[in-house]
């Protein structure tokens, strides 16, 4: 360090590729990183989806032997881990990455290289988890990894679980710091907090939740790792250890995590509904503050995952109350969304259909959520398919529908081309029907006593029919995903040209050309209103109705029109190898801890090397 001379190029020549593989490996552009997040998370969605289909095939008929118990346990564990940590979280990250700088009128995130580091660490963490399939068996202790089963299970599977989640958690923690700073600091002039788009607001709340929740998970995972690898006794009952500690730590992380998964989708829906209703969001302040309230209250409800462990009637009653009342801000959001479409001029595009689907399905998930707060009846529902139904209604019918709404809404911005409405609607209706066929029956199965996480079930106890219906539904969902893929592949090359603002939208990202140039905004926009772009296009007449500011208003002002010449005077951060290099060392440490400790030292040195190169390298060359 001390020997470095300012003029010397450290280690590598600065990468400068703008096309091809090297450019993607070294990119620090938030838009490219967003695309990488989106594509990677979608591939994991396909893997997690195949796992779901295997589960549904196994459970289609009673006493099936399609999978062994061991295979089934690995698959349901990996399905949960994948969908939560490798699909819904990074899909949210794809949207934050691509959109937040655009929505706040910035040219990039606060720490562009740190952003690249987040992505590579997430990708390598995911690959690390999946490499367990070939290295002695994948995790089989459930996504919740309850101690002390998770410390007892043989094989390296749960080591991969503990270290793999630690890696993807690190990725999210780093991203949380990055986005908190970006949103607070990089806002364009005039974009006060209460003018920020709701998606930006919800992202901010999510980053704070991650910032405070992930370290708690990190400690739980360290304790599990140390118990398994170094002989500590945190969860060993014979030594006085208490397996319930794991449950407290895990759910203290796990419940805020639920809001980490759902709030981005709520943000997306809050953007989409106004655009296609031609009305501003109803009760902006109420939507924002209810989001913040959910974020706060999300910390006081974790023990509702533990109503059956015997915490005692006082604790159970307290957590029942907090769980019930978190429904209040959630309800406020739903009513405001309805207020938004009420009296509007609703256009049923695909993004709008998915947003409406989100609201309709989330209401069901929210109501079944309230029934879980009723401790005595929850004791009948805990760990049954009723719970599985509930969280699929909020995380699939909720989060995933919202994310698909966002995908259809912003695809034209990202690629410059429109997705086909025909295929999009096919996708939506297949998914809505398939979803309800798959997960609706789970309510009945759960109430009729079917437990979760069972590889098989006896005949003649009333479960056969609904299980079969559910399996049929799951294949309809698979077909809908196929329709989405066909739509994307066709549209990327052959879709209609989108133009800067195809939806007559309201927020800053629509001010840029589609796709936006490397530097986003040729001139940083000055913001005077909430829904700035709308206000550049329309004024309100005395009866509160919009009138176009200029004839045929679509593109607003002179900022960054398409076809403008390159702006060479804008300094953008340069690409860098070092984030990727530092990330590469992390899974090596993981393998080292599990299989052969000298490897961990090698990994540590790679990380250190990457970080040193990184700190010696300027953000941008001259």
């Amino acid at each position, binding site marked *: 360090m001390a020997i470095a001379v300012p003029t010397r190029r450290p280690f590598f020549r600065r990468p400068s590729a703008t096309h091809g593989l090297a450019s993607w490996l070294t990119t620090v552009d938030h838009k490219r990183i967003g695309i990488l997040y989106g594509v990677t998370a979608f591939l994991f969605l396909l893997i997690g989806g195949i796992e779901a289909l295997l589960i549904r095939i196994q459970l289609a008929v009673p006493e099936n032997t399609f999978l062994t118990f061991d295979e089934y346990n690995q698959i349901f564990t990996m399905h949960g881990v994948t969908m939560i940590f490798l699909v819904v979280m990074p899909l949210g990250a794809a949207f934050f990455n691509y959109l937040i700088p655009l929505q706040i009128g910035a040219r990039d995130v606060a720490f562009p290289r740190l952003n690249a580091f987040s992505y590579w660490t997430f990708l390598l963490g995911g690959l690390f988890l999946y490499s367990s399939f070939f290295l002695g068996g994948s995790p089989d202790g459930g996504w919740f990894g309850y101690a002390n089963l998770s410390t007892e299970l043989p094989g390296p599977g749960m080591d991969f679980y503990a270290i793999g989640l630690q890696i993807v958690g690190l990725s999210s923690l780093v991203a949380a710091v990055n986005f908190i700073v970006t949103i607070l600091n990089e806002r364009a002039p005039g974009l006060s907090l209460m003018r920020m788009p709701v998606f930006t607001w919800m992202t901010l709340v999510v980053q704070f939740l991650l910032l405070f929740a992930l370290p708690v998970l990190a400690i739980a995972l360290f304790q599990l790792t140390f118990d398994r690898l170094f002989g500590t006794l945190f969860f060993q009952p014979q030594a006085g250890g208490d397996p319930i500690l794991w449950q407290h730590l895990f759910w203290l992380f796990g419940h805020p995590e639920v809001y980490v998964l759902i709030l981005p989708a709520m943000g997306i829906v809050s953007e989409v509904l106004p655009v296609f209703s031609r009305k501003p969001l109803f*009760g902006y302040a109420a939507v924002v503050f209810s989001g913040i309230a959910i974020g706060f209250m999300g910390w006081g409800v974790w023990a509702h995952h533990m109503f059956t462990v015997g915490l005692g009637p006082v604790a159970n009653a307290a957590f029942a109350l907090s769980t019930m009342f978190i429904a209040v801000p959630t309800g406020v959001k739903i009513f405001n969304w309805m207020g938004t479409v009420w009296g509007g001029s609703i256009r049923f595009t695909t993004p709008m259909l998915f947003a409406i689907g989100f609201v309709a399905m989330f209401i069901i998930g929210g109501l079944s959520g309230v029934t879980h707060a009723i401790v005595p009846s929850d004791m009948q529902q805990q760990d049954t398919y009723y719970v599985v139904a509930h969280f699929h209604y909020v995380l699939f019918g909720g989060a995933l529908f919202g994310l698909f709404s966002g995908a259809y809404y912003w695809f034209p911005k990202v690629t410059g081309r429109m997705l086909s409405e025909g295929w999009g609607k096919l996708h939506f209706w297949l998914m809505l029907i398939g979803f309800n066929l798959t997960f609706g029956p789970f309510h009945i199965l759960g109430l009729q006593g079917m437990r979760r996480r069972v590889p098989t079930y006896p005949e003649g106890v009333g479960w056969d029919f609904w299980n079969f219906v559910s399996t049929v539904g799951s294949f309809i969902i698979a077909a809908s995903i196929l329709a989405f893929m066909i739509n994307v592949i066709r549209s990327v090359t052959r879709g209609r040209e989108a133009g800067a603002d195809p939806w007559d939208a309201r927020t800053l990202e629509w001010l840029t050309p589609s796709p936006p140039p490397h530097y986003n905004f040729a001139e940083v926009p000055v913001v005077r209103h909430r829904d700035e772009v709308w206000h550049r296009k329309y004024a309100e007449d005395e009866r509160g109705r919009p009138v176009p500011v200029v004839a045929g208003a679509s593109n607003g002002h002179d900022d960054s029109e398409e076809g403008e010449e390159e702006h060479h005077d804008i300094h953008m951060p340069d690409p860098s190898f070092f984030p990727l290099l530092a990330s590469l060392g992390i899974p090596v440490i993981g393998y080292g801890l599990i299989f052969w400790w000298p490897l961990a030292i090698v990994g540590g040195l790679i990380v250190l090397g990457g970080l040193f190169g990184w700190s010696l390298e300027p953000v941008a060359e001259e």
Partner: protein
Amino acid sequence: MTRSSPAKRARLIWLALSAGALLLLAACTQDYDYNSLAPAGPVAEKQADLFFLVFWIATGVFVVVEGLLVFALFRFRRRSSNETPKQIHGNTRLEILWTIVPALLLAGVAVPTIGTIFDLSGCPEGGVEVEVVGHQWWWEVNYPELQITTANEIHVPAREPVCITLKSEDVNHSWWVPRLAGKQDLVPGRTIELQIEANQPGVYQGECAEYCGLSHGIMLFQVIADERADFDAWAEEQGRPAAPPAPGSEVETTIQQCLQCHAIAGLSEPPPGAPIEGPDLTHVGSRRTIVGGWLENTPQELARWLRNPPGVKPGSKMPNYRLTDEQIEDLVEYLGSLE
């Protein structure tokens, strides 16, 4: 796309959803073995009552909210491309209304909820006491007052409160008899109590509801409620030691293998304090099921089990002893005689 079709479709979904709710109700009232909504005892009844109270309120909310949503989608669909709706930014009075009303509704539900939580917590005085210890993957059942030990089958007197004390020998399990009571976890290092009561004599299915490893899926048990006299007779029978096998017979040697891990009162007393590895077999012939409640107790099934335990219950602690057909036949006969 034609303008009215989305609303029509939405109406269809709406109909389908209501039909679904009705189907759910219809399905839920049948008394299948595991149906939590066909309660057979006061505890499960209170839990089901509370569920239905909330279910009907939730259904009401569902109908109103989804109905308004569908109505809005239909009523305010775009009819021409240059519509200019009034730009409404919000309404404070409405915000207050839809914060207060749900809060009041929830407060209304909270009252009976908290009442029932305290009502059902712990055990009432004076009932039969049963201690259940969870193992991977079977249940040890002790009656401390009656000095009885059995497995996977819990006999209780009907119409009397019973106190179940739950412990675990290895990992978390959860004890659940849907028709009698909601589940309660078995946590190593902790002791948790649960009350149950059966309204009528009968057999009630139970299952392990907390994922506990490889064969969690087939970890079942039964609660058998008898009339008081029958229960007493059963208890007396269970208190008796087993008759040893005929001296000099083949099975007398084979059974020594079993006694390494299983207790059979009358043949061997397990050393005090020794960890029990396998279920007590003293009266195994009297039980309805074997192998953690998964198989019916018939000679064929017992033979299948003895031929290859890990093949029947993956991860079973009982290894495959490669017994000959003859040994198995003898064992099945002898164990079947232990009533």
